[in-house]
């Protein structure tokens, strides 16, 4: 059977950019900028892109192509080929585990986007108040209610979107490339249309209820630099975190896609191009839609109080209604269509490491690989759909979609520079290159990137109370204690925040709800550990199989 391969270079770059572009480009980035010094946030953000983003892209692209030379298309054996210790293939399990766990809830968001496209077209939000639009979302994620007449519609649309992903995945790289070639240009087109509206809205959206509303206020706040924020470690950590999550590094998907690149083909220019395309969508389009449009109709104060993930589904449909019936329908299709394409191009990427692993190690074809991935995603995903209100969705996102990525990226950067060796690594990056990467990057990749990742990891591990780094550091300097925030990894493990909520519960119903929440959160952690154990077991089996077949190492 011929090896799967990319049809064109542009297709590969669009697929890679599609993998990186996600909901965070449109929602997380502007919110982070607003909360961390406005225009000044862009300075640490762009510095982190150069010192951590680009190096990690180069590491992952070159590691992937290196693995592909030995017919390894997923991180367990790509990493095994780069370091002699047995542990690396088990560390590589992160590169499959993360994808299965993340796709489980990510496809749920995709299904929301698809359903909201439908509702935008049929005019469901017409005449609804802002709170009615927000309540519509709350009702939708309650699996017992229905907005379309289809029973269990949240589950139905979730399975439908998952099935769509499986069907495309079963076509192999060709299917993924086709979706990227259609989805990415449409996403950019929709984004440009909405961004033009956001940049030209001005004061035209003010109303009796919000007489101070002005889109310029949103843009002013987003772009006016507050240079004093540059000395705040919190701002730098936020910038590093944003760069990290926006590029989809630390997941194992980039390595998998790159493993299908031919040995003599460029990776340096491809990696930088895909990285900048993601930055274009984030910095240019992402900053010009949600914040100015929301400030244009609801005012800056409202934005500063409510800016967050929920705006996408709970606020934007209401704002679009202010443009009139027809324009609202188009805007809804553009916005939710854009989110859908951003989602599906990422979730398709998440399927490939599992499929690549099962094909390499157990000879599973595309169809078997795709459907088994879908089955795993469904088993992992149903709890996030059925128990959404108990925080299972957020728990997956925290452990699989946040912590695992940082841990894996830190370890892979150590492997690349210090175990595989920076000289060999540098040669891999430059082999067949169409772009001369400045020599200084050799130093950055070896020292700066792992150090930055370590700082990001420590930042999550011991997040200080209320994320006030400066205050806590000076407190420790003066002999005081480091006070941890409930959002820190250390306190998160022991559910400090929830236990505090439990103690403050005002009645029996509230108390029972929080108790149930703690139970389901602990169960979801067991499920995640189980998934990691299951994939590790498969790696163990495949290792034994390789020993029997006499192909343990490449040397």
């Amino acid at each position, binding site marked *: 059977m011929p090896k799967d391969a990319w049809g064109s*270079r*542009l297709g590969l*770059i669009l697929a890679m950019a599609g993998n990186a572009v996600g909901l965070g480009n449109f929602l997380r980035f502007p919110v982070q900028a607003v909360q961390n010094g*406005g*225009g000044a946030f*862009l300075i640490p953000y*762009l510095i982190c892109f150069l010192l951590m983003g680009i190096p990690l892209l180069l590491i992952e692209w070159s590691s992937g192509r290196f693995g592909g030379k030995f017919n390894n298309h997923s991180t367990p054996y790509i990493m095994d080929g780069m370091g002699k210790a047995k542990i690396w293939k088990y560390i590589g399990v992160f590169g499959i585990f993360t994808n299965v766990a993340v796709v489980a809830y990510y496809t749920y968001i995709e299904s929301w986007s698809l359903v909201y496209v439908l509702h935008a077209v049929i005019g469901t939000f017409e005449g609804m108040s802002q709170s009615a639009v927000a309540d519509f979302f709350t009702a939708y994620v309650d699996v017992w209610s229905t907005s379309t007449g289809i029973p269990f519609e949240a589950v139905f649309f979730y399975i439908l979107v998952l099935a769509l992903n499986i069907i495309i995945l079963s076509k192999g790289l060709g299917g993924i490339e086709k979706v990227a070639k259609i989805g990415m240009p449409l996403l950019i087109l929709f984004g440009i249309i909405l961004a033009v509206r956001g940049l030209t809205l001005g004061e035209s959206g003010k109303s009796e209820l919000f007489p101070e509303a002005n889109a*310029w206020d949103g*843009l*002013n706040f*987003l*772009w*006016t*630099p507050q240079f004093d924020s540059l000395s705040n470690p919190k701002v730098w950590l936020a910038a590093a975190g944003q760069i990290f999550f926006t590029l989809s590094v630390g997941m194992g998907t980039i390595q998998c896609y790159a493993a299908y690149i*031919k040995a*003599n*083909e*460029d990776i340096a*220019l*491809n990696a*930088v*191009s895909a990285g*900048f*395309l993601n*930055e*274009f969508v984030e*910095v*240019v389009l992402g*900053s010009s839609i949600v914040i100015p449009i929301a400030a244009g109709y609801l005012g800056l104060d409202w934005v500063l109080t409510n800016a967050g993930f929920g705006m996408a589904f709970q606020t934007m449909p209401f704002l679009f209604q202010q443009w009139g019936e027809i324009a609202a329908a188009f805007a809804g299709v553009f916005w939710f269509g854009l989110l859908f394409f951003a989602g599906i191009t990422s979730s398709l990427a998440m399927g490939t490491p599992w499929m690549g692993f099962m094909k390499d190690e157990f000879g599973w074809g595309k169809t078997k690989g795709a459907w088994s991935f879908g089955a795993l995603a469904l088993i992992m995903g149903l709890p996030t759909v059925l128990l959404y209100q108990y925080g299972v969705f957020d728990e997956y996102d925290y452990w699989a979609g946040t912590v695992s990525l940082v841990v894996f990226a830190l370890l892979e950067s150590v492997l690349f520079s210090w175990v595989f060796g920076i000289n060999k690594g540098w040669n891999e990056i430059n082999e*067949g290159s*169409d*772009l001369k990467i400045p020599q200084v990057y050799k130093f950055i990749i070896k020292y700066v990137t792992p150090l930055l990742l370590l700082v990001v990891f420590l930042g999550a591990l011991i997040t200080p109370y209320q994320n006030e780094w400066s205050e806590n550091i000076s407190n420790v300097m003066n002999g005081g204690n480091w006070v941890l925030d409930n959002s820190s990894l250390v306190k998160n493990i022991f559910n400090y925040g929830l236990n505090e909520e439990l103690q403050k519960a005002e009645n029996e119903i509230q108390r029972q709800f929080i108790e149930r929440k703690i139970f389901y959160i602990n169960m979801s952690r067991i499920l995640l550990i189980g998934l990691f154990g299951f994939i590790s077991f498969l790696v163990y089996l495949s290792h034994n199989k390789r020993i029997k077949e006499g192909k343990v190492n490449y040397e």
Partner: protein
Amino acid sequence: MNSIALVMLLVTQGTVTAATLYFLYKVLNSSKK
């Protein structure tokens, strides 16, 4: 918009857009191996 915000917006978005277009142009015009 105030002047400094406008300058930040134009410089940042202009730089990112120009870099994106430059690299994509290079990709499309690189010789096939």
